[in-house]
């Protein structure tokens, strides 16, 4: 089988594109310039949004850079906690999938918004776990919520493929 024949197979094309987009995007966000110009401000916006939600819930939360703090507890939002990696995996899956451009656009925008909403729930819930169950904070932070966010991203991708990417008769 030559490269052209391989490329004509939708599943092979999907795999090649998926791995390429994933590898390139992970490399790009690792660059210091990109980190300073995009990743850190993006994380700060997530912190601002988390602080806003906590204030709506009656917490005296203040935000400084990527740190959300109140007299009761404080959380620092690091690179792994901003939902960016899950978003990149999701976007790579959407862009590599054999679908119309409009479907991909819906996928990218809808997916990013949904993953960020889930991530905000995660940050706010972790704040309250830190307040009320501080002994479980690390477990909730590392293996409960990280696993949940990854699986949510994968589920979203599968849902998007069926609702928007595939022709109706196929889905």
């Amino acid at each position, binding site marked *: 089988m030559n490269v052209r024949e391989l490329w004509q197979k939708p599943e092979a094309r999907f795999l090649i594109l998926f791995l390429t987009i994933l590898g390139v995007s992970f490399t790009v966000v690792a660059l210091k310039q990109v980190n300073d110009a995009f990743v850190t401000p993006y994380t700060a916006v997530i912190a601002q949004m988390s602080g806003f939600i906590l204030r709506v819930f009656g917490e005296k939360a203040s935000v400084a850079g990527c740190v959300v703090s109140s007299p009761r507890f404080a959380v620092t939002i690091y*690179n792994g906690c901003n939902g960016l990696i899950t978003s990149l995996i999701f976007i790579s899956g959407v862009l590599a999938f054999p679908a119309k451009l409009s479907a991909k656009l819906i996928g990218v925008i809808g997916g990013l918004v949904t993953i960020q909403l889930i991530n905000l729930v995660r940050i706010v819930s972790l704040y309250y776990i830190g307040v009320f169950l501080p002994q479980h904070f690390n477990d909730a932070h590392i293996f409960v919520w990280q*696993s949940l966010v990854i*699986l949510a991203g994968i*589920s979203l991708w599968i849902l998007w493929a069926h609702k928007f990417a595939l022709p109706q008769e196929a889905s």
Partner: protein
Amino acid sequence: MKNSTQHFLRRLPITLIAATFIWLLLRPAIDMAVAGVTQTLIRSFEYPRVTRLVVEDHRAQMRRADLRTDSRVHTVSMTEITFNTIVLLALYLALPRPFSRHQLERLFMGWCVLGLCQSLNLLFHVKTLYALGLGEWSQVHYSDFARNFYGFGRYFTDLPGRFSFPFLIWLGFNWEVVMKMLGIQEDAPTKSKTKGKKANGRG
């Protein structure tokens, strides 16, 4: 939506809980296995063989036989390195007939590959510490290239790797099942120009 996809998505929350319990149960053994493989890998390219990884309270302690006994012991969280086993298990168990021999074989192979990825993650942590974190000793024993190489390896196997490896391994070992579930393979033209050979649609 296809039945198989609906079943998969419905089963996923339940399998996530089951996977979490399995991981919690096997965690000490997983920690030991990952640290053991990493230690073997590091010592394979080390002369004299001085690195020792000791797992205590789900943290890998990096000990070197040539350091003073009162030297600071650096540690890495094994929970952060091995938690993605939960994701792999949950995805596997949510597929149809997860306890069939075929699927169990795939799970075993996938788990082994993930274990190797976790070992590489820990290896890059240790080597990055050696190349960057031990002051003058690091400067003398490691080149700029080595520092960049280990730093890059650590970055890639850390967040991007931990998050994407379980998904990629699951996808790779269950390619036909997932592609059919996603509807990609059904759309593939099976009567393509294959010079007389019959395409069976399996890729």
